[in-house]
């Protein structure tokens, strides 16, 4: 059988066929995107290419306790330079009158402390907070690959967005183009850098370092083309959101329990 890329594959399998998919694409809401993925996962596991692996990442914000273990594990695993982050955790604190305070001290490398008193004095007593871990979304329609002048940013067959650091010229165009602030120029190497979903581990059957260490299973990683995988089931059974869906980058990092205040 002719090898199909994922988009072609999707086109052939989703819904009632090409038309549905095309229109789905035009008015792509997150729900529809997910629908694509679910049916994709379903049909893929039936027979056509059972061994096919497409990675996906799910963050359950309801579970995250903001301990920052993931940030520390990531720094240790990937040698992330000082002051930069391949993953970080944000805290959203809600005050009376609808005011929200967002912070992420040192990317939550050392976890969080209670909101400062002076903030309480000006904003009132916080009544609610939650944490949102962030990382590269490994978008389906990535602006970062699109803009790279030398083709150093690319997508692997597993759907992981990587950077060929031997080719990158360090122009930082991708850093500008990523809407999520996940990319940075590595100050030691002079090239672009970001989360790889621990490609070196995940292609060996291991989990990404951050997923491995999360004490509350707020981070789930797996093969979304296998409908029986943990992540596929969770994607099916929950209401799932992505970041900045209006930009149409179609992230493959999904969120459970994302609030509209999170951008």
């Amino acid at each position: 059988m002719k090898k199909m890329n994922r988009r072609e594959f999707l086109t052939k399998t989703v819904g009632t066929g090409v038309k549905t998919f095309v229109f789905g694409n035009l008015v792509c809401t997150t729900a529809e995107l997910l629908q694509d993925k679910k049916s994709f996962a379903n049909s893929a596991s039936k027979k056509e290419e059972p061994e096919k692996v497409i990675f996906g990442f799910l963050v359950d914000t309801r579970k995250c306790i903001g301990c920052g273990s993931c940030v520390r594990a990531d720094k240790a695993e990937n040698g992330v330079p000082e002051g930069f982050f391949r993953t970080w955790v944000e805290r959203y604190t809600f005050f009376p009158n609808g005011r929200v305070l967002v912070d992420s001290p040192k990317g939550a490398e050392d976890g969080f402390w209670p909101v400062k008193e002076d903030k309480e004095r000006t904003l009132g007593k916080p009544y609610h907070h939650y944490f949102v871990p962030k990382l590269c979304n490994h978008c389906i329609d990535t602006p970062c690959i699109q803009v790279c002048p030398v083709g150093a940013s690319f997508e692997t067959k597993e759907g992981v967005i990587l950077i060929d650091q031997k080719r990158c010229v360090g122009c930082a165009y991708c850093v500008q183009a990523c809407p999520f602030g996940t990319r940075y120029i590595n100050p030691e190497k002079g090239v672009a850098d970001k989360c790889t979903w621990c490609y070196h581990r995940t292609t060996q059957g291991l989990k990404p370092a951050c997923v491995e260490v999360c004490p509350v299973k707020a981070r789930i990683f797996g093969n979304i083309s296998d409908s029986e995988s943990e992540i596929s089931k969770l994607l099916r059974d929950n209401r799932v959101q992505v970041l900045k869906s209006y930009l149409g980058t179609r992230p493959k990092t999904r969120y459970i329990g994302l609030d509209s205040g999170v951008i």
Partner: protein
Amino acid sequence: MHHYFVEGFVLPNQNQIWWTILIVLYPYITGIVAGAFIISSLYHVFNKEDLKPVSRFSLLMAFAFLLFATCPLLGHLGRPERALNIMLTPNPTSAMAGFGFIYATYLIILAIEIWLVYRPDIVYLSKHSSSMLLRKLYWLLSLGVDNVSKSSLESDHKVMIFLASIGIPAACTLHGYVGFIFGAIKANPWWSSPMMPVIFLLSAIVSGIAMVLVCYQAIHYLKGRAIDSQCTQALMGYLWLFAIIDVAIELLEIINHAYMANEDWEVLHELVMTKLFVSYVVIQMLVCSVIPIGLLGAAIIFRKRLSDRIRNAMGFLSAMLLLIQVLAMRWNVVIGGQMFSKSFRGFLRFDVEVFGREGLLVAFAIFLMPFITLGIFARLLPLWGPIETYPKKWLRKGLPEKQNLTFPEPAHPS
């Protein structure tokens, strides 16, 4: 080390402004190229006789600036030694990948055009220049072609028109494309706009004309030569026209943002009213737009009542202000667009770095290079006039005083 200051919630990786002064300089330099080229084309192709005194100079100026347009880019790359990758493995979906090709095409067109314009001079100097060495150099420059008959010059002229007809769209592409680099970034609401290429192109033309006007007057003033007021008047007319359209579209753009008031307007509004208040509201939109447009308008409308001297002074001042306006516009786009976080909840402060690879000094040095190059050109080729204006010392001794130095000017097909 840079010192960056962060307020509100800024995404952790956005602790730096990645594109700094050099990236402000880059569109400024290419803009001057595009504008100067259009001035020379107005004479060479569209027969605007008034512009004859600056037609040669603006061509050389475009070339001198173009030669250094790549410097700011190289200075800014994390791995400058790999710069050629942009031409070796270009990514077809990247706007930036087109740079190498557009740039190279344009450089070639300009070089040929200059050669054609100066061919009669080069041929003449290859025979009558003061030293043997120079004669050899000019002979090299002439590429061994010494036919300056009327018919050969006329065919030169045809080629020139043809080149300019590619050159004008190339100049527009080069600059429209620079605007597209920013306009196509949907991640950044301050950049992403289909108007960006238009604004960049118009401001490019403004800065190019302004630079020609400033240099022409300054050099003639310093050398004690008479300024051709016909020519400055024409330049002022074009400058006025393009400045009005440019500022109008810049205004429309911001009004559009404010009126649509998308969710990002909150952060943009804050940006404009605080971080960019001086550079955008005061410099770009008020002082350096309103004053020059008013002055130029007055100089044109009251042409008859004002003396040449006053009019030229008004033109000079307006051109200087517009040069600052365009520089401010580049600054506000490039730096301004990076002063707020993609969280839309926080700001960064940018402190200009003076020393260092991407600092102010390097930027100055790069900006000076085109002028130095123009100085070198001026020793080799007459910047302004035809052969009659050669300094005596350029020519070998013993040439008859009343020699027929005039070459047949290729007639404009009018």
